[in-house]
């Protein structure tokens, strides 16, 4: 096993996680539970495919993918902020809705139940090991950019205030709802970008292609204690385990199913506080009546 090829494969697997976990971090730091990342990602993948297919250009695909993720993010925001619907239910509903709508429009647009026609991804020179895909760089940059946003900008300060003590923020004139709308919209865009990467990397959209990656992102957010850089490290850890499993495929050292379980088991352990407590933002999920 070549360490370089391990690293490059690991990074490519990590990209969707990095995007989606970034989105999860910003939304949850503002106090909104983010379980719809899977749905955002799937929608982004599909709309990206539509855009790339009809225009022939992957960059248009990126644009439409962002719009798709943004749309679902806004639905989540309106339902939970304006209508105060239960945030867990909304997340799960959007995941189901994403599966349904992508399937429906897959049939409508491409007359298929399983996949779209092939689309142009970013020209990948195999000698470049995937590093010529701009989305890879964007994915890697998500964590530092978010960390900067969260800890160095005025908006980030407000997000942190709103997620911990919305009444205090309200009392100094900050519009809590607006801060949250932006955060959730961002999470839609970022998770959508994760889907864009998937679709363009695989050069097509397949039914339910996200395959639970959105939930691994949730696991990374929690395991990373709602910090962008730590969540990104968690993503890399999970991606490393996955890469290990793929590369050891033939050896049957450990069955693939057990490698699959790692992110989820780690998160449960983190929640139980066995290895230090994972304490969420204080106002996460609570809505003032």
């Amino acid at each position, binding site marked *: 096993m070549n360490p370089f090829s391990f690293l490059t494969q690991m990074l490519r697997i990590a990209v969707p996680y990095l995007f989606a976990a970034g989105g999860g971090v910003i939304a949850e730091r503002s106090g909104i*539970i983010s*379980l719809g990342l899977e749905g955002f990602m799937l929608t982004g993948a599909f709309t990206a495919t539509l855009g790339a297919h009809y225009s022939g250009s992957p960059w248009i695909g990126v644009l439409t993918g962002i719009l798709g993720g943004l749309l679902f993010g806004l*639905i989540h925001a309106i*339902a939970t902020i304006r*209508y*105060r*619907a*239960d945030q*867990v*239910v*909304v997340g*799960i*509903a*959007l*995941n*189901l*809705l*994403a*599966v*349904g*709508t992508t*399937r*429906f429009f*897959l*049939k*409508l647009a491409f007359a298929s*139940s399983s996949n779209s026609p092939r689309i142009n991804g970013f020209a990948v020179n195999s000698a470049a090991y995937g590093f010529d895909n701009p989305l890879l760089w964007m994915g890697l940059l998500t964590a530092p950019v978010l960390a900067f946003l969260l800890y160095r900008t005025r908006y980030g300060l407000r997000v942190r205030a709103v997620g911990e003590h919305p009444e205090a923020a309200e009392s100094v004139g900050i519009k809590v709802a607006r801060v949250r709308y932006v955060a959730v919209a961002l999470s839609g865009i970022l998770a959508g970008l994760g889907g864009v990467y998937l679709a363009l990397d695989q050069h097509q959209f397949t039914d339910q292609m996200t395959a*639970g990656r959105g*939930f691994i992102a*949730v*696991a990374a957010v*929690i395991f990373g204690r709602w910090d962008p850089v730590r969540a990104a490290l968690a993503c890399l850890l999970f991606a490393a385990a996955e890469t290990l499993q793929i590369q050891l495929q033939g050896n049957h050292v450990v*069955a693939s*199913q*057990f490698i*699959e*379980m790692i992110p*989820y*088991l780690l*998160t*449960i352990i983190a*929640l*139980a*506080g066995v290895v230090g407590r994972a304490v*969420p933002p204080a106002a996460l999920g609570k809505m003032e009546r």
Partner: protein
Amino acid sequence: MTSEFREKLEEALFPPFVALLVALICGDLLIMSYGQSPSSVYRLLIEGTWGNAYGFGQVLYKTTTLAFTGLAVSLGIRAGLFNVGAESQLAAGGFLAALVGLALSPAIPGFVAIPLCMIAAAAGGAVVGAIPGYLRVRFGAHEVIVTIMLNFVVLALLNWFIANHLHVPETLHTPEIRAGVVPRLSQYIPAFHGSAANLTIILALIVAALVWFGLFRTRRGYELRAVGLQPDAAEYGGVNVGGIWFRALTTSGAIAGLGGINYVLGYKHYYEDGFAGGSGFLGIAVALVGRNHPVGVILAALFFATLSQGGLAIHAFVPKQMVEVLQGVVILAVAMSVPEVRQALRLARKPAKA
């Protein structure tokens, strides 16, 4: 009808009503985007589900599983807990039922074998439900995330069992179970010939009745609902809140696990990897639309089952995926309308009480 009962009914029925309206409008849009006429598609949907015996049988079959998962989730919500793990509890229940069924000799009569399998199914689900229960009580770990994560863990584990040990070659299911076969409805009502509907639906109705009785007529049910409504008052009333939480999640898991019987013993007579097929998550929708009441849950299960089967019936005209879209829309609409309706009704009622 007392005014209190009517008020409760109003608050309970408004959101699903709103949701139905939204679903109809959405359905119209989707159908028209396919160039079809909504009224003819809806007529086809009704005909294909409640209009013929086979279709209705399929509806009953799907209702059964959803009833179990819906009851499971609603019981948790009554205790103030969100069980998102019905999917893996259902699968674990079916798995254990299959194990017991395979282990028993076919010579053992049904009325012995089936109850044994049922106990196994309930136990399987209960174990999966007990884990988040314990973690919540002991560590304060939020059951939403634990159950979501545990879903993946358990399903992966079950997949491993099947793929590596128990499967019939070229498939992902166990060998056929001879002991503990639950008869199809078509055995008693020939009109249902060909449909998967089986006697497990009777079990579902019994469990619904038991849940109703347990919640509203027993001491533990009183305490459980109290914990869900106002844990501080329950504690004041001498209730062991942590104990209730643990038992609620465990029981919730057991009920979901029992649902596995429907597929494993009543339909295919084997355990198949992935048989749960999203019924666990739909159970959340069923509980929500059914307003967490056993009667509502049964009705909501019927509704979602009808939608699901209806999708197949209209497949020639509109892709059955439309139904999946409608499911998501209905859940969103109900979730959004519940707080609004509650607030609106409270404001409307205020002047009457001084």
